[in-house]
């Protein structure tokens, strides 16, 4: 590079900072999150309080779970665009079935389409080598179609969000959102799977170098099948939580979360080309996007401008982040 610092400290400061960031890729994300919160506090003094934090966390959780699906699939070089449909299906089914059959059967029925869609995705991507983007988009459309058919059959029943889901989705106990009761175990599980299990290793391996993984005896389709079923189940769980938060099941309930879930994973440092990233970054990414949304809302911009700004910021942050973290 151009900086030729004389003397003993041959490594220029900028490079040292980049080394540091590259070894601890979460640091810049935390800094960004803090900056956003500070900006919010400056623009609306007093807004950042206990209630606001609980609220932000509540809205960030369903996004963070869906972004977990994206993180895991993106680690293998894939993506799961059916998560919003799966979440919506789970939410809608539980709201129509739990009234009649009770919560346990209701949840089981709600997660059934999740498993089916996950299996279809896994078979398509893992065995028939359909591109994940196309495969999951296809199953997503099929799923929404099925849900529309299903809706006609339950028009008479009407929808009702089960009480335990509302409690979980919106309730706050001692300043902490109840949703954390679900999220902490789920997040711990994802982190554990990715960092401490053989399956997690294989996700990274398949995404980093599929041929190397194959030569080491990794059977691609088995990994991919398990992955997409897991991702779908997780999306179903996120849907159950989300309907408890929104309390109004509809056929497009989780759609607004789809692209932010991808963005959260990308902002959090997971490469869409596979092999690199992790769930901690994704959680921070989900928080950053949620705070950013609040920030853009209180600026009282028209919806269009807000979206434009949101998109630009996501692009900028991702580009800048990769610049900082990639130490070449």
């Amino acid at each position, binding site marked *: 590079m151009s900086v030729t610092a004389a003397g003993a400290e041959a490594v220029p400061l900028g490079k040292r900072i980049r080394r540091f960031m590259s070894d601890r890729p979460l640091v810049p994300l935390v800094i960004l999150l803090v900056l956003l919160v500070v900006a919010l506090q400056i623009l609306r003094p007093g807004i950042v309080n206990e209630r606001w934090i609980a609220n932000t966390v509540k809205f960030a959780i369903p996004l963070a779970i869906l972004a977990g699906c994206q993180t895991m699939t993106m680690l293998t070089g894939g993506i799961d665009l059916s998560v919003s449909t799966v979440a919506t299906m789970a939410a809608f089914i539980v709201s129509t079935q739990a009234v009649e059959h009770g919560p346990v059967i209701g949840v089981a029925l709600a997660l059934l389409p999740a498993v089916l869609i996950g299996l279809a995705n896994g078979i398509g991507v893992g065995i028939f080598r359909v591109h994940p983007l196309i495969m999951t988009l296809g199953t997503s459309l099929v799923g929404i179609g099925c849900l529309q058919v299903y809706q006609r059959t339950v028009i008479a029943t009407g929808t009702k969000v089960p009480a335990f889901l509302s409690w979980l989705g919106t309730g706050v106990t001692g300043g902490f959102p109840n949703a954390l009761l679900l999220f902490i175990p789920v997040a711990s599980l994802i982190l554990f799977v990715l960092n401490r299990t053989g399956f997690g*290793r294989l996700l990274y391996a398949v995404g*980093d*170098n599929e041929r*190397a*993984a194959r*030569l080491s005896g*990794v*059977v691609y389709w088995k990994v991919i099948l398990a992955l997409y079923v897991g991702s779908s189940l997780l999306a179903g769980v996120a849907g159950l939580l989300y309907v408890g938060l929104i309390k109004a099941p509809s056929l497009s309930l989780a759609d607004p979360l789809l692209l932010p879930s991808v963005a959260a994973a990308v902002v959090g440092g997971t490469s869409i080309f596979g092999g690199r990233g992790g769930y901690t970054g994704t959680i921070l990414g989900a928080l950053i996007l949620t705070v950013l949304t609040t920030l853009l809302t209180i600026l009282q911009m028209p919806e269009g401008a807000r979206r434009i700004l949101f998109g630009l910021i996501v692009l900028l942050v991702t580009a800048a982040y990769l610049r900082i973290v990639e130490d070449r």
Partner: protein
Amino acid sequence: MLETTGAKKPVTTNPILDATGVAKNYGAVAALRNASLSVLPGEVHALMGANGAGKSTLVKILTGAVRPSGGRIQIRGETREFSSPGAARRAGLVPVYQEPSLIPDLDIASNLRLTRTPVEPFAEWVRELGVNDLSLGATARDVPLAIQRVLDLARALAAEPHVLLLDEMTAALPADLAERVVDVVRRQSAAGRSVIFISHRFVEIAAMCDRATVLRDGETVGVLKIETGVEERIVELMLGAKIEKARGVTHGARSTATVAGPPRVAVRNLAVGKLQDVSFELANGEVAGVVALEGQGQDELFEALAGARKPSAGTIEVDGAAVRFAHPADAIRAGLALVPGDRSEALLMHRSVRENIALPFSAPFRRWGPIALRKERATVTAAIERLQIDTRAQREVQRLSGGNQQKVTIARWIAAETRTILCFDPTRGIDVRTKREIYRLLRELAGQGFSVLYYTSELEEVQHVCDRAIVIFGGRVVDVLPVEIADEAALTRAAYGLPRQSEVAP
């Protein structure tokens, strides 16, 4: 500079192509120092050289794919800049390569239009070459491979080149077509056109060529007239001084008779890719070298043994039982694992040394659960220490040096205690010290009863590591040399399909 050996063809005309002092540096590495090639009108001229002699670099320069760092190239006495493949073509030098060059998704007519090849002469050449039922509307993909090669040649001929460059083009042809090609090439030279012919087959060279230029270490070391017995002279030139300083065996060769029971691996009549009928055995506690010229199908052999490619015929036996590998996982279960020649095919570049070494542990379904970290660390650390991998930059394997990366790919199978390691040119492009360490390690493994199949493109390695050398040429095992006589000269001769030299008194 140009040392001319052997009788020259009476020079009546100036050379049609005259390249002198051609050099090419890649950074500090000189791929070509001082290469020259002079082709007379109406001559079929063979270009020869061992692996790494600079043959392919010279071809790339002549065809305009690579710019030379020095030297002069003249065509018909005119100095030409071969700045692009198109420029070389316009200057009258048209190449035909080993791999088909037709675009598979276009039909033949569209392919011709791409290179502005006139259709009439093309069709005539195709008939001349013995293909009578070609439809121009056929998609190139649907044309059999051998015919595609003929079409490539016809297309080149239709461009009426001054010099036709045939790079291993007969290698993939059935015998009858190859003969036709030889015929046509001969007639080309009678018509005053010249041909540069690159081939590993002495039979073809003897049948077709007038003279041969031999390269060694980036220099032209001789130009010979093709006559009977010239093969020996060419091999000598390709090897140069190496023939005198052939090293002795650096390890005690293991006697095969001491190991009882069935061989560790037995390959019988295996056909895969370019290999037609390959049989050999690999004993327990043996390092068997595989020697072959580039592109003889050795990579396919290794992939078949590692379960990464399905053989079309023949059997593989492990410990006396026939096996059929559908996936590398099956081969690994049978204790066979591949260390590929290209490290980027084996490593997870963004993952740590530890994860790379431990990768095979997690592969079977029953090992998908929680990792026993302490046990894993112990195993991995033992492997790292055994190979002396420099782990200062172990967070990402891509930050390691080439030698250390290669050690990681081997350490993986040491840690997994794989009984048979298939090493495909593992020392390519790594430093001498690491090479020595790898030799020592492989000998050590053999001493412990493990077995290694070892392909190398550097023939001198055979005597450093191997107990035997299995030589493959033309799709078959042509010779198996005991290590004592497997010096570079003997291996080179065998690799070119020449018979063993009769025992000469020292």
